[in-house]
């Protein structure tokens, strides 16, 4: 519906790109626009949109069906809420229970502009911090809405019985978190994600009992069905029986999480994957800003080739721990306790005297990489730096340190077998979150009508970098409050004409899935899925990780293409299609990661600027700090898939088409970050 209001004056001009590093790797398409964001003052837009969105009569809702893929905070909350409203929801997850989705592993907390501390917080301040933290690469309307609904999330979770930390007076406690000056983070010890997810899970299970939600566990979505221009269902594999099933609905929601596992090693769960999103991308949904990756500085380093995943330790450790490496390369294998003070380089304190060990995540991560590249890294493979609590223990006493960080120290000791009270911890950065994802408009609808995307799977709210305690906020905002309000504007035009197994689009999607499964099992090569996935991860980490260069990215694209070719000719998957077959599951995921990895490199190659989690060595200040180029790159890069000509089982990727969405700000002005 047309909005009669006009926007306040813009504070920036649309970008005009003059560089073209990715020339030959892409073609330029039409610009794309978010047509759903209402105009007008920023604090009125969400109210206006909710009012303008159509209403579905309660009696008609049960005739309307929605498929939701993923049961994390976004998917679980959406399933519960749409079920409560009376829609017919089918919920899918690859795990054995919706309660296992990886939202459960989030530690720190969830932001909300409650201002319970009276320290000057507000919706506008949370909005401001989030846009700034995202290095001015997010859409302001979306971020404002996120901040606006944040207080409702806390109300909802408390009413559900989420046991947030409380003060002695019985009221909710807050703490401050990375890079902001107010205390707005609600938490449940170090297990906030777990508690919020269980809240959403229980609300969803209640709707299963009520008959509005059906759950399909141990099911993996392998294709989206796009019929007559609309998303109308999915093809899923029952992971226990191997049966390829089709499911139909009036709308499809992907809440399938992030794709950090393209790096093989990350803090994601073993099963976290891009398949749902990538299959949608292949069917026409744009993938936005795929190169925006968040690398977390305080993870436990890799211990050997056997490493299957990385474990994050809360960045609160940097409040009291001091980060250092030996000044002399010769000392790197020495017992750190034997290295005298004058032979240690507390490099963050030296380079960033005002912020010291508390510089933002991306800066701390990159600084650690430089030390290790310089040959001063410690531990296995020289990939680690010390995080030392000796001074903190001297200053506060062991008891205080134990009280503050005991659970983290225990976890470290369990994994490494070393006692961090005695020897300094070793840490190294690890891939943690992706800000990129499927492109969505203000309604969280992709460019395929009827296909909605929520949570980490979409791109919309964090720009080029996500602030701490904002992932949980976005997942639940999308699931509880945003999607249920916007999807009704699509469903109000339903129910759409019934389709069945005989529809050509259904036949094609199902055949494609079956052919792909058969292909994996018939290659009969020499190499395991994991070996390909690991090799891809190494390429991505080396060339598309913390620091990226045009030369390295081009090299990576070549390497990935070679690897992809080998994958499709030398893969070895044993077992059958009609049983539980974990190698087969991994083969499908790795095949999609191989294609995604290439697109990430192309996106990173095109974006010749440094912003948030994306650092291009060619774009830095004289002091080595990230340098944005707003004049060229203040846009969302939305990529369209094109198939290439060869074969049906391995159609690979053709040249992707870049659609730009201009980022125009009216409620905030772009500024350059500085942490010196």
């Amino acid at each position, binding site marked *: 519906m047309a909005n009669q209001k006009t926007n306040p004056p813009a504070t920036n001009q649309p970008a005009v790109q003059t560089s073209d590093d990715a020339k030959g790797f892409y073609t330029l398409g039409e610009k794309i626009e978010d047509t759903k964001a209402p105009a007008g003052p920023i604090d009125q837009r969400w109210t206006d949109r909710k009012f303008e969105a159509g209403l579905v009569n309660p009696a008609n809702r049960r005739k309307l069906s929605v498929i939701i893929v993923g049961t994390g905070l976004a998917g679980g909350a959406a399933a519960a*809420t749409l079920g409560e409203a009376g829609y017919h929801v089918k919920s899918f997850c690859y795990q054995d229970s919706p309660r*296992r989705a990886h939202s459960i*592993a989030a530690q720190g907390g969830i932001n909300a502009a409650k201002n319970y501390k009276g320290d000057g917080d507000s919706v506008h301040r949370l909005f401001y911090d989030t846009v700034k933290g995202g290095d001015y690469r997010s859409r302001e309307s979306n971020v404002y809405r996120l901040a606006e609904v944040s207080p409702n999330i806390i109300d909802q979770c408390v009413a559900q019985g989420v046991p*947030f930390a*409380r003060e*002695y007076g019985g009221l909710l406690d807050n703490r401050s978190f990375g890079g902001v000056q107010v205390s707005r983070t609600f938490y449940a010890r170090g297990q906030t994600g*777990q508690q919020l997810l269980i809240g959403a899970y*229980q609300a969803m299970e209640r709707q299963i009992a009520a008959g509005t939600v059906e759950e399909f566990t141990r099911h993996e979505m392998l294709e989206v069905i796009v019929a007559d221009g609309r998303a109308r269902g999915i093809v899923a594999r029952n992971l226990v029986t191997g049966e390829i099933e089709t499911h139909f609905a009036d709308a499809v929601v992907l809440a399938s999480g992030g794709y950090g596992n393209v790096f093989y090693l990350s803090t994601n769960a073993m099963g976290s994957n891009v398949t749902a999103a990538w299959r949608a991308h292949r069917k026409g949904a744009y993938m936005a800003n795929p190169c925006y990756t968040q690398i977390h500085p305080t993870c436990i380093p890799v211990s050997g080739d056997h490493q299957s995943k990385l474990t994050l330790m809360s960045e609160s450790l940097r409040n009291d721990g001091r980060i250092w490496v030996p000044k002399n390369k010769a000392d790197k294998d020495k017992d750190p306790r034997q290295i005298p003070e004058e032979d240690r380089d507390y490099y963050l304190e030296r380079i960033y005297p005002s912020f010291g060990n508390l510089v933002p995540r991306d800066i701390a991560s990159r600084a650690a990489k430089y030390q290790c590249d310089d040959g001063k890294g410690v531990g296995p493979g020289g990939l680690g730096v010390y995080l030392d609590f000796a001074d903190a223990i001297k200053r506060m006493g062991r008891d205080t340190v134990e009280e503050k960080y005991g659970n983290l120290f225990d*976890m470290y000791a369990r994994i490494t077998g070393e006692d961090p009270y005695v020897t300094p911890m070793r840490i190294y950065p690890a891939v943690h979150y992706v800000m990129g994802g499927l492109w969505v408009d203000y309604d969280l609808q992709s460019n395929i009508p009827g296909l909605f995307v929520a949570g980490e799977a979409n791109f919309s709210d964090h720009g080029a970098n996500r602030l701490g305690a904002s992932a949980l906020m976005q997942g639940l905002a999308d699931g509880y409050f945003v999607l249920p309000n916007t999807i009704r504007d699509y469903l109000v035009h339903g129910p759409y004409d019934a389709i069945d197994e005989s529809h050509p689009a259904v036949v094609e999607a199902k055949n494609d899935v079956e052919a792909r499964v058969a292909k994996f099992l018939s290659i009969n090569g020499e190499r395991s899925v994991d070996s390909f996935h690991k090799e891809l991860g190494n390429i991505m980490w080396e060339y598309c990780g913390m620091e990226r260069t045009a030369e390295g990215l081009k090299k990576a694209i070549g390497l990935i293409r070679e690897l992809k070719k080998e994958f499709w000719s030398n893969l070895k998957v044993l*077992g059958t299609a009609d049983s539980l077959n974990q190698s087969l599951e991994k083969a499908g995921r790795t095949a999609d990661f191989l294609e995604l990895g290439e697109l990430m490199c192309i996106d990173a190659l095109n974006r010749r600027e440094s912003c948030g989690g994306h650092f291009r060595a060619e774009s830095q200040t004289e002091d080595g700090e990230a340098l944005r180029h707003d004049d060229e790159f203040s846009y969302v890069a939305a990529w369209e898939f094109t198939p290439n000509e060869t074969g049906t089982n391995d159609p690979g990727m053709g040249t992707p088409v870049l659609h730009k969405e201009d980022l125009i700000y009216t409620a905030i002005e772009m500024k350059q970050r500085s942490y010196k």
Partner: protein
Amino acid sequence: MKLTLKIWRQANQDAKGAMHTYELDEVSEDMSFLEMLDVLNEKLNADGEEPIAFDSDCREGICGMCSLMINGEAHGPEVTTTCQLHMRSFNDGETITIEPWRAQAFPVIKDLVVDRSAFDRIIQMGGFISVNTGAAPDAATMPVPKDKADRSFDMATCIGCGACVAACPNGSASLFLGAKITHLGELPQGQAERNERVVNMAAQHDHEHFGGCTNIGECSAACPKEIPLDVISQLNKDLRTAMKQGR
């Protein structure tokens, strides 16, 4: 180190399973237990034998997806999940027996993978507080005494892994059930449905063929999140009260 592994293999739910023996060299003590199985699976794949199916996801001890009876103990010898167990807890030359969770209510799907969907069905019968999205009052309107909030939290840390059931000679899920009853029962928000909740969830528990509790305590000893045994007393107390009051 060098290990001998005796592992339960079963093709599917209806097939007859058996223990198989595998030798594995060059196991590093820094490997997690599941990484050790990954290495074995890579070797099996290379040798043309189908890899062993086992569940895991987060591998940081919080999602509850991993399981395994290791030398007869649920999640092995340490108080943690299998994914957080490391090989330094074992000795060179050791023989390790690895089985799936053993309980009537958790049928084996394949090898070491079991079906724990009975837990979801117990939650469906009342493991929630009924509040539709948008119907919540401001979070600050209802103070919760800190000790109650803390106890509620401690019980809410249950990860639903099923170790309690696997460890119990009766195959009872009373610890799982008691943890949820206590999590919600300690909070003022949980009072309205308290009686109904415990009666319905306990009925579903029995319906799923979980056994009765005879106060053995293996469940709590096996729990990676150290849920205390007294939640079962709380469960029985709540059940008694509810029955007395005719719900």
